[in-house]
């Protein structure tokens, strides 16, 4: 996948690109039965899935801007759930904190109607290798 191509899982879940912000994609998912967890709230796994997609997309966009196509492989993710996600549109955006030659660290924020009150934060670590290797 690159910054603008979402994999089958993301498409099936209803994840899409809402808009770009400083040339970085903001992803969204609308509420549906498919992402429902406990009654009235988004499933933490579905929310994590959205955030991971935002992490991939943000890193792809950053590497593309640098003109450094790389193969990226997730090493791990840490998700902090801060508020229950309710039945409305959810957004997520990844910010590349550091992308060196071998490792990239991406912070991801998820929010709903109030951007200043994120519902979850995540941090993903990726291993980078030159495309084609």
């Amino acid at each position, binding site marked *: *996948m690159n910054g603008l191509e979402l*994999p*089958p*899982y*993301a*498409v*099936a*879940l209803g994840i899409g690109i809402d808009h770009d912000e400083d040339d970085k994609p903001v992803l969204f998912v609308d509420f549906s*039965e*498919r*992402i*429902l*967890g*406990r*009654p009235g*709230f*988004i*499933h*933490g*796994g*579905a929310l*994590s*899935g*959205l955030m*991971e*997609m935002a992490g991939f997309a943000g890193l792809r966009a950053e590497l593309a801007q640098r003109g450094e196509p790389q193969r990226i492989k*997730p*090493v*791990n*993710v*840490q*998700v*902090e*759930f801060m508020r*229950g996600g309710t039945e409305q549109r959810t957004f997520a955006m990844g910010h590349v904190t550091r992308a060196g030659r071998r490792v990239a660290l991406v912070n991801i924020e998820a929010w709903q109607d109030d951007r200043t009150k994120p519902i979850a934060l995540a941090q993903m670590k990726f291993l980078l290798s030159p495309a084609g290797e």
Partner: protein
Amino acid sequence: MPNPPTEDLFATKPGSDFDPLALSALMTRRAHAGWLGMAYEGHGDGWVELSLPWREDLVGVPETGVLASGPIISLMDNATSISVWSMARRFLPHATLDLRVDYVRAAEPGRKVIGRGECYKLTRTIAFVRGIAHDGDPDDPVAHVIGTFMATHGTYL
């Protein structure tokens, strides 16, 4: 954050033993877990195993057919969540505070993934969990998970 239909679960008599099988059946027949096709595999004292099918629309890397990691997080969220109730021997509402997942290797395309969640420590308000996901050999996991839950109404102990 799993999806117990609370009205059914609260009907459980106080003090009666929590049944991970019955709860898993309820939790996996609808909503996010139902859509993913999650299923009960087994349980013991403080641990629960659920499974996730390999399915084309759950793929994260179209070129290889490798499952996306989102469904694996969902699987581990639910398995560890039920393991907490198994340890507490009763259902009570709680929320996932955090989850960390180490992607040890890619899951083999075509294979179902088993998620084993274990609660290793309960306090009054916080449950500490860990788990692994594997695609056939528990000694060769695809992911390791660690996390915490918080009781939102009442206490675990």
